[in-house]
């Protein structure tokens, strides 16, 4: 092989005065960036192997380590940036598609940050959530147009609803893309907080089925792990058509990750590649989707809501109208900043649209067609904090999914190397030695803390707006004002400019 032109992205700096040669860094780095020279009693670093995941930095007992961006610079060039050049080197060396993990990291505008929330002043009182009730409970599912009541009783029972104590669910992340311990932590936290964990297309591990009441089981194009028991095991079923990080692209779990547990859970042979085709091969059009939705409803006796998850693409509003009419109870829209365990870099960075626009367009369209009540809308894709969620609900969402934020809560440092399987934090890996670094109980506690913290913040923001039930925020776009947006963008978001 020819000489690699790639220089290290990061520099590992070790303060030798502080280093006590304990070799924690050596043992912790799955990328083998640190080595110990016994003869010289030196700890050495190979910068080229460092992914900047902070594992060694965090665990170093004497705080001897720092990771810096390699200051090495190419000749300044606005077109041929260091990233552009390095990507060509990589492809010239390997002849392959560039892979990446997690969500789009390009500096596209984050529209959440260009919307500001309202608060009550004088003409109506803000409500203090520490003194007054403040309700976040959310029901997801199809609602009838009219509630038929006869002699004080409901004539017809409501279609099945998912009852969430807080309108934040964990996005689909499969056992395979993340470790069992990570799955367990998510499932435990969901169940203890009264929200939902989502299996992704990884099957539903037998040891996690006790959390079924708080689990959405996914049916995706590979149909991994799907059988009658699987459909029954969750509280709802989600058909995954696409995901924001890689619209139009399938998935691939390499055979070396398919070990005994994954093999059993996904119902595929040990060591075989788990390939999820780009489309469902029984869904080539909207009428096919309708058949799958109703097959799943038939199979579960209309006792479970069926969700359809799609990536936010250009024509998302019309597509969602079709999905609603096809019989979905919930539509999940994943924006272009949505995370992933592995995606082709060019797809992740260039395909799809911001969730803020997609959500606004879909909510507006469904209302124009008078069918907004027929479905619940869940949005996702790069949601970072409670304010993003409040803004999403004001734009028209019923609830949100969080994936990356949840993983960050349990240790992810956004190094974006999930596809390597060497996650030093025990999250995106199947290596038993790495997986055991993630204690499910501690991780679940961190997730619960995060949800509780966000719930508190959301209540404060709601109270400030003079609202004491989350449903009064849903689609309440007057609570938003835009800043730094063009009038076209304001129109699409359906909001006014600040000062208007």
């Amino acid at each position, binding site marked *: 092989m020819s000489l690699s032109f790639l220089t290290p992205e990061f520099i590992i700096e070790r303060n030798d005065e502080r280093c006590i040669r304990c070799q924690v860094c050596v043992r912790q780095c799955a990328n083998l960036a640190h080595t110990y020279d016994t003869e010289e009693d030196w700890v050495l670093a190979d910068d080229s192997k460092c992914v900047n995941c902070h594992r060694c930095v965090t665990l170093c007992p004497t705080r001897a380590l720092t990771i810096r961006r390699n200051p090495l610079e190419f000749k300044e060039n606005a077109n041929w940036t260091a990233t552009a050049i390095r990507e060509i080197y990589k492809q010239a060396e390997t002849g392959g598609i560039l892979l990446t993990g997690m969500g789009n990291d390009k500096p596209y505008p984050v529209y959440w940050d260009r919307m500001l929330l309202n608060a009550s002043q004088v003409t109506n009182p803000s409500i203090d959530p520490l003194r007054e009730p403040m309700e976040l409970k959310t029901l997801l599912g199809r609602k009838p147009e009219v*509630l038929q009541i006869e002699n004080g009783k409901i004539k017809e029972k409501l279609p099945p609803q998912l009852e969430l104590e807080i309108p934040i669910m964990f996005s689909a992340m499969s056992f395979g893309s993340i470790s069992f311990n990570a799955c367990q932590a998510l499932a435990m936290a969901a169940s203890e907080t009264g929200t939902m964990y989502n299996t992704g297309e990884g099957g539903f591990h037998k040891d996690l089925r006790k959390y079924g009441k708080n689990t959405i089981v996914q049916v995706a194009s590979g149909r991994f792990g799907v059988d009658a028991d699987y459909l029954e095991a969750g509280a709802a079923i989600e058909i995954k058509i696409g995901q924001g990080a890689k619209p139009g692209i399938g998935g691939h779990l390499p055979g070396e990750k398919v070990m005994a547990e994954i093999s059993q859970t996904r119902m595929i042979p040990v060591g075989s590649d788990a390939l999820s085709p780009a489309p469902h091969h029984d869904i080539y059009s909207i009428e096919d989707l309708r058949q799958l939705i109703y097959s799943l409803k038939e199979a579960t006796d209309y006792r479970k809501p069926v969700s359809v998850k799609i990536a936010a693409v250009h024509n998302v509003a019309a597509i969602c109208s079709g999905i609603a009419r096809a019989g979905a109870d919930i539509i999940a829209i994943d924006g272009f900043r949505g995370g992933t365990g592995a995606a082709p870099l060019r797809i992740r960075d260039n395909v799809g649209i911001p969730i803020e626009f997609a959500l606004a367009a879909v909510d507006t369209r469904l209302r124009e067609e008078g069918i907004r009540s027929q479905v619940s809308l869940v949005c996702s894709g790069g949601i970072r904090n409670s304010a993003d969620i409040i803004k999403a609900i004001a734009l028209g969402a019923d609830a949100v999914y969080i994936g990356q934020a949840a993983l960050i809560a349990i240790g992810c440092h956004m190094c974006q190397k999930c596809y390597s399987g060497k996650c030093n934090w025990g999250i995106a890996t199947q290596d038993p030695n790495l997986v055991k670094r993630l204690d499910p109980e501690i991780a679940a506690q961190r997730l619960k803390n995060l949800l509780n913290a966000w719930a508190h913040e959301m209540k404060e923001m709601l109270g400030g707006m*003079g609202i004491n*039930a989350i449903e009064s925020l849903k689609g*309440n776009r007057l609570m938003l004002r835009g800043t730094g947006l063009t009038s076209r963008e304001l129109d699409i978001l359906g909001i006014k400019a600040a000062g208007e």
Partner: protein
Amino acid sequence: MMLQYEGKVRIPSGCAISGMINKKGQLFPGNDIVKSIALMHERSNGLGGGFAAYGIYPEYKDLYAIHMFYDHNGAKETVELFLNRHFNIKLSEKIPTRKVSSIKDAPIIWRYFALPREDKLIESGLDENEFVVRCVMQINANFEGAFVVSSGKNMGAFKAVGFPEDVGDFYMLDTYKAYIWTAHGRFPTNTPGWWGGAHPFTLLDWSVVHNGEISSYDANKRWLKMYGYKCTLQTDTEVITYMFDLLYRKHRLPLEIALTAMAAPLWDEIERMDRKKRELMKSIRAVYGSALINGPFSIILGSKNGIVALNDRIKLRSLVAAVKDDFVYIASEESAIRVICPKPDRVWAPMGGEPVIALLEGVESI
């Protein structure tokens, strides 16, 4: 930027409300209601006052009484063309007024007693009420300089820019007799003083007077829009009126259920209910989540059958009720009741979300 009328811009306002009914249906003049609302002078700022009265047109009780404001004669002419195309008009006349120094810039104030034209009604395929609603919406949305003040049978709304007691004097309410009166004094925070923006807001024989600023406004409005309601005024009162119309008239929910949807019990309370009630409440909140009126409000809703008063579910606005013989009184302040009824049989402050329903005798529901 030019100062914008209501409908172009949303204007929050605080207010006073008062209402009274004789449950036997006996008519009484407007003096008491004016006295009651006048006592709460401090709760208004002279930028809007109004009244609704039921039983005032016994001689035309089967006809729709359409009260109109016109900014200019041109508007009157175009609307009259429209009305003539859609209605048989039995009587068209100026609404009598008295000169009051503080009431200025009055529009042309007119009323029509009319019934939908048979042929138009059949052509539209709508029932009579829905036909009238559509016509009202069309005038308010599409006819510049024209505004429908009220459109019910044997009732009318009288409103203006000014303090409510002056408005009552202006419209000579002492000369009308009704079995239900409701009143409103307005304290808008910013208004160019448009007569149409004053309360009560009406639709058919529904009238609403309201105090508060609802924080769920856009959620409610956008939901109503799905059912064909155009909220042209951008006022809370309009939204509340349409919401009630949708739930009660169109969706045919029982009165208590419609009111529950608008001021739903808290989830904590629902959890403590028995299974059947819990399921009912849960369904209401699930289906009618967007109908929940959030934020401070107290309203008095009037119809030919009676009045209903309602507070927001955590009682962020004052509301007091009283009973004396055949009369039921409701007002923002107890003093506004005692000024006209010093010794009521019973006085109480209704709980948040707990409706006060006062109907004519022999009537089952509003």
